[in-house]
Each structure stands twice: as C-alpha cells, then as structure tokens.
C-alpha cells in the first residue's frame, strides 16, 4: 500500500467493533488490518476517518470521541481530532 495512514490500536475488548466502524466510515477505501496480537494496525492510503456516531452504532453504547485515546497506542500519518470524528492523513 502506498502512503498508508491510520491508527495502531492496543489490545482491547472493542477491537472488532472499532475496526468495523472504521471500515463503515471509509467505504471506498481498501482498509488493511495487520494483527500483531498486542497491537493491531488499521490503515488505508492517504486518509482514514472514523466518526463518533459510527463507533456508537458498532459498540452499541454511547461513546465520546476522546475515549479512543485509551486504546490508541500510536498512529501512522498526522491526526485531526474533533468532537465527532478523528481523521488520519498524510500528504503524499
């Protein structure tokens, strides 16, 4: 993948739901998931976004966007964090 960006998530119970939300929010992108057990790298080319509403749908509970920090061990690219979404991006 050229210019991959996205979160690196530490082991947690919500991993599958978070990955599903990221896939749902980026329907036209190839989202690659690399599982290294203690951490999972989720990445797509140039840009990746996840929205709070989508995370709530997949988690089945209220979710504040800042809560993602608890499992966000690292990320590739730059970050833009808001109340309703987080975007990872990198100019090629």
């Amino acid at each position: 993948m050229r210019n991959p960006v996205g979160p690196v998530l530490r082991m947690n119970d919500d991993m599958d739901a978070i990955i599903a939300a990221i896939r749902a929010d980026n329907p036209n992108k190839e989202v690659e998931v690399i599982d290294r057990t203690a951490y999972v790298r989720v990445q797509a080319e140039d840009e990746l976004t996840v929205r709070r509403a989508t995370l709530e749908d997949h988690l089945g509970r209220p979710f504040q966007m800042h809560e993602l920090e608890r499992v966000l061990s690292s990320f590739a690219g730059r970050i833009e964090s808001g109340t309703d979404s987080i975007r990872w991006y990198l100019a090629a």
Partner: protein
Amino acid sequence: MARMKREEWFDIASDVDWTFKFVDREAVFPEWMSGKGKAPFEAWLSWDEPYKISYPEYVANQREKETAAFAVKSLLRRSKTFDQLDEGWKSVHKAHYGAVALIEFLAILSELRMARFGLAPKWRNVAVFGALDELRHTQLTLAFAHEHIKEDPQYDWAHKAYHTNEWGIVAARALFDGFMMNPNAVDIAIQLPFTFETGFTNMQFVALAADALESGDLNFANMISSIQTDEARHAQQGHPTLEILMKHDPDRAQWLVDKTFWLSARLFAILTGPAMDYYTPLAQRRHSYKEFMQEWIIEQYLRTITSYGLKKPWYWQEFVDGLDTWHHSLHLGVWFWRPTVWWKPQAGVSRAERRWLLSKYPDWEQHFGWIWDQLIENVNAGRIDKTLPETLPWLCNTCQLPIGTAASPSNEKYPIRSYQLEHDGYTYHFCSKPCRQIWWKDRDTQHMKTIVERLLTGEINPPTVEGILGYMGLTPDVMGDDAYKYRWAEEYREPPKQAAE
C-alpha cells in the same frame, strides 16, 4: 442540556495569554530557554496542536487507563505468571525498568520546560498534560518493577540505575541530557516529542509489547502499551513546532531531527535490539528487530518526516545498513561484559537460534558466528575466564557505546576502527562518522566524559575489573551473568546432527 462541541469553545479557553506590562517578552521567554531562533514571537502564536483534548477529558481518560493497568497487575499478582516467565525474557524487563523508569521522570522536567517556556499558550497547556503523563509513567514503571524486588534484587535497579555510573546508564544519560535537559523548549519539542516519541518509543512500547504478549507477559505488555497511548497524544507537540520551524529555519529543524534520530538509533540498538532478537524466547519470536524497525521507523516515521519537507538524514544508508550489524555487535559486547549490567543476558545462540538469526540476517554467521564459536569453545572447555572481560572497551565520545559496535570485524564497508578528531590538543574517538559530526557541531550539549576517560584520568580506583564494577555500583548479588548458566552451550559438545540441520 446539550453541551457545546469542544471545537466551539476550545480555542478561546486554551489560547489565553498574558499581556506583559512591566517586563519585556524577551525577559519572560529568554532565548536560551525558549529558543525562538529566527522565527519571530508572532510566528509562534499560530502554534496549534492537532490532537486536542480538554482537561476533563484528559482526567477521565487517564483514570480509565490507570484502572485498567492496575487491574491486570492486581489479578496477575495472585497467579504464578511471573514465576513461569523465561529467565531471558525477564532480562527485557530489567533492562527496560532500569533504563526507562527515571527517564520518564526526566521527561517531566522537559515537559515542564515547554510548559513554562513554550512560545504559545496552547503549547504550554499541552505540555502540562505531557508533564502529568510522564509522572504517571514514572510511577507506573517503578511500581511494576518494585513488586519483583523480593524475588530478584536486579529489579531494584529500576530506581537505582540512574544513581550509578554503570556504563550503559552513562550512555543513556548522555543521550537524554543532551536532547531533553540541556536544550531550549523549541529544540526539546523537535527532539523529544517529534523525533523520539513519534518515532523510537513506538519500538520499545508498542512493538516490544507484541513480544511481551507472545512471551506470556500480559502485565508488561499491558503497561507499556498503556504508556504509549499518552505518548501518541503529547508527542503531537512536535508537529506544530516543526511546521513553524520549517517556515523560518529549516536547516535547524533538519539538524535537530538528524542528530536525535542517529543517537536514538544507537541507543535502541542496545536496548531494544537484543531484547527482540536474543532475549525473547525463540518459540515466541515472530518478528526480528530489523523487521520492527522497518515497520515503525523506516516506513511509518520516515513518511512523517518527509511529509514536512525534511530530507532523509545524510547518513541514511549507514543507518539502514546498521540494522544488520549494530545490535548484534552490541549484544555480543553486553554478553561478554555481562558482570557490568544489572540483568542476565541470554546468549541466544543455540543452534536453533542461530538458524533463526540466519533466516533474518543472512550475513550473521559471517560477521558474528565465528566469534560466538570461540566463546562456546571456551565455555565448553571450562575456560569461563576467557569469556569474561579484563578491562573496558574503548568508548565513543558521542554515543558512549563501544567503538566497533557500529561495525563488525569482517565487514569491509563498516570495519572496526575509531574515527578520530583532534581538538584543543586532545584526541577524541568516535564509533562512526555521524557520531563524530554530531559531537563537533553540538559539543556544548553532547560532551560527557566516557567511562574509559574516567579510568585513564584516575577517577576509577583501583583501575581493575573489581574497581570498575565498584565504580559502576554493581554488587555481586546484582551483577549480570548468563541467563541459563551456559546450558545452551552443551549441545555444541557434539557435532551438529546432519538430518536436523
């Protein structure tokens, strides 16, 4: 009642600044502490962190992280998990705790320098969170290590190490004082959050967590990956600082990144390299140090720095080539000088382990195999004294690591030699050209006497191995020895089984 979105009030709350009436701004933010350099004060006011968080959000997250980390610790305390850990793997712990715990404390001071002398109010706010983060990391690391002191006194070095002159600690102190304590706020932001925390700490805190989990060490994996969630946030202080610096003084930005990257790479080659390729039990090794460096540094970090318009560091090829050499040389040295460390180095060169090394590093046997063969022969002949040091290796005046560890004996491109520099009638020695270049340009922040220089100038008495060990603070109950008491060498008494090879 609906709450306002953070975006609607955050900038007003976090961008509150003083209007100075009785002092000049230069007096409040002196150049030697703030380091605005060629960028005027006004330029720094555009500083805007990309990873935003309010104080209530910060507290809520940190509370949850702490609860999760200590819940696992409490649970495992009642189990026999620790007793079942491999002795080689425990050395990963011990090296980590000693080398890292009080550097987390040092990082509090670096963050506080940015919290006071950072050139924008938003920056100063973020740095306060950074200081609180580092306080958490210090406490967490010391608390996790402290629990094991009753089983093994080497864990006491989590707190003790930086209060000694142990040679690895002297090397680490030279690096961290050089880029975290001595510089001004702008230089710290480029060197610590942008270069070290955005790049290298991922290796020790995220990639190593994968090895930890495979090795059955859930507690350590949980702790270090929890710490890195803080780093991922406060490391973002580097990005807006770099953006401003790139507009006004790109040469300075390039130098700061180049210098810190090289020195960090040298230190991680001794801290993380042996942990991943030698101390992690073979059955649990999935990826090599070189592969993790490829993933985290060569791919992820390099893309980040080039996206800001920075060039690859001038020594890039030498760094890449070093991934086949440095940590193997350093591991060999640490094992040979094992009484001088506070952990038990696992040699990691059984026949099966050598096959693994060869599969990851095709030139390993050519460069290092014959040296280990000689050591193994001495071990099996009962000549343990021939596998132990009688003095110290010559050390690099910049990275403080042994001369020859950026090289290997049969390596034509990077042979074992000293790169010298005459200055004011004194000959300085360096492991590599980049270390020599860094010392020459930044000798005001990188100048620390090596252990060898201390030995030769009479600071270590008596100048014997015993005297050196005493100077380093190593007592017999703590000094390192082979993790498996040489049992791994026994298979070499017999010729290799052809079918199995």
